């Protein structure tokens, strides 16, 4: 067992930090970027591409970076620290891995270079209003028509779905609404006839979209992976995404904890730094404990995200998400509390971390969901 980074990984981490760190240092600048379409910096996105970050998960043979979960973890930590707005999770982690693991060689050949050079952004149009966290609850329907399909349905809260050039859409080609079987992935142009998008800002300054598909015609070759068999792939990529946002959460929480320590050391009340009050010291220690426990499970999730034994992967990822959620909530709430008034304003960085951490808690399954999933897997201790 070995927790050390390789030299290459260290280099990656440092260069990502150098890129993202200063980019959103200025909150007013961040707000301006968020307010204008596409809601992130295209300039910065190009630099992500230059660094090879957009090619991260793909193999070197097909023009990728050949990175694994540890590399993804390092990038996502930096995104968390930096409060970055770019659609890395949507394009690279979610859609990139769907393509890497599900697409045909021909599809990969067509798509990977465009993702890698930053010209193609993608969004994963999956969630529906009735589904809550159930990954297999898909009501959008793909009806066979000639040699292709016609899509019909509505998707909710599609991350960066308003600006993506292509969408990967889940649709049911057979089965009933909550059937794990019968789901298919389709690659659809975002401006295809019948696709209608309504973009919106998210609570944490990012972008989302509600997307409706009204008789959208797609060819058979638009399907990624086997028709009707996308269930396991969706679950696997959701687990990879959870490991990624776990890393983002740890990046954000560590930065927030550091910010809070600074504040405790510099802010004075009643003539002394507030960090001299024992109650606030112990609160900072409990935040630190929550952070270290989260970091441990971040590493564990990174290790298990690539696990081929699906039940073991599910248990590990769900356990990690529960810990991340718990730590994120505690650290976020306490950081705000220790900052006092300034912590609840948009004018200070702490609150933005708090908001992002809160939204990570709600993403890809909340705590009760993952406890149920872990429980359904027959528990944990014996599987460890």
């Amino acid at each position, binding site marked *: 067992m070995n927790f050390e980074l390789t030299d290459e990984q260290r280099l990656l981490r440092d260069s990502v930090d150098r890129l993202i760190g200063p980019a959103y240092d200025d909150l007013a600048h961040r707000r301006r970027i968020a307010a204008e379409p596409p809601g992130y910096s295209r300039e910065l996105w190009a630099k992500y591409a230059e660094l090879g970050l957009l090619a991260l998960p793909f193999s070197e043979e097909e023009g990728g970076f050949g990175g694994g979960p540890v590399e993804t973890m390092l990038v996502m930590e930096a995104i968390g620290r930096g409060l970055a707005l770019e659609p890395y999770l949507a394009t690279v982690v979610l859609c990139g891995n769907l393509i890497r693991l599900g697409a045909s060689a021909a599809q990969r050949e067509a798509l990977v270079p465009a993702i890698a050079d930053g010209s193609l952004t993608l969004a994963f149009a999956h969630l529906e209003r009735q589904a*809550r966290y159930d990954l297999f609850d898909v009501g959008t329907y793909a009806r066979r028509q000639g040699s292709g399909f016609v899509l019909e349905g509505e998707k*909710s809260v599609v991350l960066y779905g308003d600006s993506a050039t292509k969408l990967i859409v889940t649709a049911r080609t057979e089965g009933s609404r909550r059937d794990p079987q019968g789901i298919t992935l389709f690659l659809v142009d975002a401006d295809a006839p019948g696709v209608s998008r309504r973009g919106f800002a998210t609570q944490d300054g990012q972008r989302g979209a*509600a997307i409706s598909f009204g008789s959208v015609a797609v060819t058979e070759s638009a399907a990624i992976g086997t028709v009707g068999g996308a269930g396991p792939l969706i679950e696997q990529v959701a687990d990879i995404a959870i490991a990624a946002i776990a890393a983002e959460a740890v990046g954000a929480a560590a930065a927030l904890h550091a910010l809070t320590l600074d504040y405790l050391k510099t802010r004075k009340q009643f003539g002394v730094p507030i960090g001299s009050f024992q109650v606030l010291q112990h609160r900072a220690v409990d935040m630190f404990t929550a952070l270290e426990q989260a970091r441990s499970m971040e590493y564990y999730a990174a290790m298990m995200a690539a696990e081929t034994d699906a039940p073991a992967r599910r248990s590990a990822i769900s356990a990690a998400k529960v810990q991340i959620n718990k730590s994120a909530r505690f650290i976020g*709430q306490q950081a705000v*509390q220790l900052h006092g008034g300034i912590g609840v*304003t948009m*004018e200070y960085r702490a609150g933005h971390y708090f908001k992002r951490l809160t*939204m990570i808690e709600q993403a890809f399954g909340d705590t009760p969901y993952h406890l149920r999933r872990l429980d359904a897997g027959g528990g944990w201790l014996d599987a460890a």
Partner: protein
Amino acid sequence: MDLRLTREEIAFRDEIRTFLCENIPEAIRNRIAEGRHVGREDYVTCQRILNAHKLATPNWPVAWGGRDWTPMQRYIFGEEVQSNNVPDPLPFNVAMVGPVIIAFGTEAQKQRLLPPTANLDIWWCQGFSEPGAGSDLASLKTRAVRDGDAWVINGQKTWTTMAQWANWIFLLARTNPEARKPQEGISFFLVDMSTPGITVRPIQLLDGGHEVNEVFFDNVRVPADALVGTEHRGWDCAKFLLANERSNIARVGISKSRLRRIRALARAVPAGDGSLWDDEDFRHRVLQVEIDLKALEMTQLRVIASEREGSRTPNPASSILKIKGSEIQQATTELALEIAGPFALPYHDPEAEYPDGANDLPEGFGWADTAAPTYFNYRKTSIYGGSNEIQRNIIAKMVLGL
């Protein structure tokens, strides 16, 4: 010991409830229940309806439009206002500056200011907090200097709630910088916000809303009668005011209303083949908050009953109302956030128009977009009015003798 409401108290409660439901516009009450933005006009409308029926200022003396109610009646009234989603009569007017003017003001000040204060013709805001002072209120730096028959005020206030809607401000300013203790040499002023030299700058809160402000005073000249009470003794007024601020601080009625809504929403939100309310684990977590709230309500009633019994020493249970009340309010926002789930993500400008009763939005559920902002916003309840840490310091010292 009889822990039931008397027949008279039940009749009083029913009368108030009926009055509120029949007289306060339903659209406003719905917006409050849904956690949506309530505008200045909504507050004014409601308070004027109450005032027309002598219900805006029941805590004031009868001579100034108050009611000769028992503490229990006052409590029941406050409960009914909150749990029926009626905006509280503006606390800056009714609970704070009004009683100060009544207790410390001149007859002329009373005549001139109390009627418009009760009717919300004057909207007051509170100029106490300053940057850098935080919990240490007495370290304030705003200065007021006598200049002929006027006072000239310079300084800055912050966290000034709804200052953008206020036309008057009551504030503390230092009039004698040489005083021995920080609490001495402070005076209490009543200032028309249209006086030249006052600037209001909004502070955006985490929910995106505009609720608090910074207020700058740049050589603001106010007449001599802007002073209320004795010169340099403004701390007496402030202490008197802060003691009143504590009443109804548990906000039991608001939490009750929120919990009712949580039950309704959880029944409405799909989960699996049914609704989230089918999840026993979720229901148990709701019940735990409800039990905590029931205990807090009983604690609040014990405090009120001990007031009525005329006990000389304050009931020690009163000290926990703020802490427990804020914890329960925050717990309700966590439950609402959980209900919203992934649909908490879309952001909707809280001050933009929102169609009444719109419950479906293409991006998810119409009601869900208030869950996260309310959760963010309610973090303030354990910070303002003396943070919960400060409250614990006070209880440790004053109640437990530590």
